[in-house]
């Protein structure tokens, strides 16, 4: 045991120059900001005041006992769960379609078209969908022509539909990443499994349930968790489409944090909010890392 430790130490000291630069970057860019946010969340305010006073967990108490936090947490959770679920479903369907052995050129063309939403920045997506879903916009026009709608409905401007509309936009924007990952997964499934299943007389549904999905499961779980982490802290799309409104109907943890910081200039309280979001996403990250370890 003693010998083992010494060897490890020698190995470590030899590897330090190699991992050193990366470690320094991680410390400076990740660990330092994180720690400073945590420290800043325990003072009364900073940046806008000359002296900060320590207030302990006061900001956490204020946030957690306020009426906005539960609403924002609920909205964020609904937004994340539905977004991720539909990303997986839509991504899987498109990945399956792209995996069909059709003309290579046509296949490439569809790949390019289907990945487009992922390429646009959030601001472009937000402006585009604001125009599409404008009460006097094209979506309402089409729905009205089909007789499905009788009025100019404000999808983003009515509390009962705003969150749903936002989820639809986020599904549209986020499925390509899942699609590409699942496509890579699909292409990695050995053909022999399907051949064996066919010989055993499995139909399309059985092949899907007993070969494709089990084989894809590691990928599905990994990117599902990753997507959940990303979606949970999504800000620009929400801010640029609804700003958290109407009322609080699309308030998420990140828009609420922004309002605390840049509308109210309560930077310490915003730091506390950021720490709360950090804890939530860390829980998801732990699941993700455990998942990755299991795969390895």
């Amino acid at each position, binding site marked *: 045991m003693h010998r083992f430790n010494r060897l490890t130490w020698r190995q470590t000291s030899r590897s330090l120059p190699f991992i050193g630069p990366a470690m320094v970057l991680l410390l400076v860019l990740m660990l330092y900001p994180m720690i400073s946010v945590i420290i800043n969340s325990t003072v009364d305010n900073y940046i806008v005041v000359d002296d900060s006073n320590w207030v302990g967990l006061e900001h956490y108490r204020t946030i957690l006992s306020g009426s906005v936090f539960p609403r924002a947490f609920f909205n964020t959770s609904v937004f994340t769960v539905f977004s991720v679920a539909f990303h997986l479903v839509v991504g899987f369907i498109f990945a399956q379609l792209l995996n069909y052995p059709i003309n290579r050129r046509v296949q490439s063309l569809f790949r390019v078209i289907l990945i487009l939403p992922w390429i646009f920045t959030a601001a472009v997506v937000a402006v585009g969908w604001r125009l599409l879903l*404008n*009460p*006097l916009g094209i979506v309402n026009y089409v729905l009205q022509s089909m007789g499905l709608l009788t*009025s100019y*409905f404000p999808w983003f*401007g009515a*509390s009962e539909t705003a969150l749903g509309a936002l989820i639809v936009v986020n599904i549209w924007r986020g499925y390509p990443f899942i699609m590409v990952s699942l496509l890579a997964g699909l292409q990695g499934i050995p053909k022999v499994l399907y051949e064996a299943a066919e010989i055993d007389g499995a139909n399309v549904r059985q092949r899907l349930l007993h070969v494709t999905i089990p084989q894809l499961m590691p990928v599905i779980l990994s990117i599902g968790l990753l997507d959940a982490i990303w979606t949970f802290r999504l800000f620009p799309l929400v801010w640029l489409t609804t700003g958290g*409104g*109407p*009322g609080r109907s699309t308030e998420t943890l990140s828009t609420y944090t922004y309002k605390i910081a840049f509308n109210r200039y309560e930077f310490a309280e915003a730091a506390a909010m950021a720490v709360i979001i950090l804890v939530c996403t860390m829980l998801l990250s732990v699941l993700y890392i455990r998942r990755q370890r299991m795969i390895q």
Partner: protein
Amino acid sequence: MLPVVSFVYPLFYNIDMLEEAGYDSPPETREEFREMAEAVTNADEGRYGWSIMLDLGQPTGVPTDIFGWYWNAGYDVMEDGQPNLDTTGMVETLQFINDLQQDGLIVPGALSRSEPEKLEEFVNERTAFMVSSTAHIAMIRDRNPDLNFGIAPVPGPSDYDGPPASRVVGWDIGISGGASEAEADAAWKVIEYIMGPDVSAFIAENANALPGNLTASPDFGGSEMHESAYSIYQEADLYSPLVGLPDTQDLQRLFAEEVHALFEGEQTAEETAAAAQEHWNSIILGDD
């Protein structure tokens, strides 16, 4: 701070739409405004009386689309350094606006509408009225050169006989508090020069704006629109609410959120005014 140039926020009206509905002049009272809004609204064709913006991301619609009506009823949002929102005037203003909303006279989507969208709706004749900055006149003409529109003071209640009022936003100039005496003297000379009647008029003419110096007489090249903007500017009581307060955005957003609740039928106009007052008290006066 002194305004080098200023812009006022009058009521923009679509002359053709009003004429089509049988009106040859803009409304002078809220009652007339409502009557005209009703007359021009045709939801089947996607045409409405008024467009307002209450997007929470940029809550500037609050001073433009709501306070504009409040000032024109003889009230101000602040009085003696105290918030002044829980008043009969505010309740009536909110009631008036909410009635227009509930009766379908406002273009749908007010709660998520941003300023560019509001302007587009006016440019594309989706709405007969909007309250907006005179800074947008050039842009409106550029987007739709055929649009036949005019500007007038925002109408007040019929029983109000005070002067018209308008929000005013300026490009301001000032001297930094950190300047030395010599620097401040030199800076003051520049300001005096810029604010002189001739230079002020020159800047206003070239910026399509209103001069910071009220005695300046800019030549707007016969532009009727700018002449009437200038007369509103000279005659109206001018308000630039919350300027200099660090929490301006938050104050506006909290107000907007309460109006959202009003529009969604969650509270009455009285409750909205009281809730807004409470928010503002807690921020401005530090009341809990």
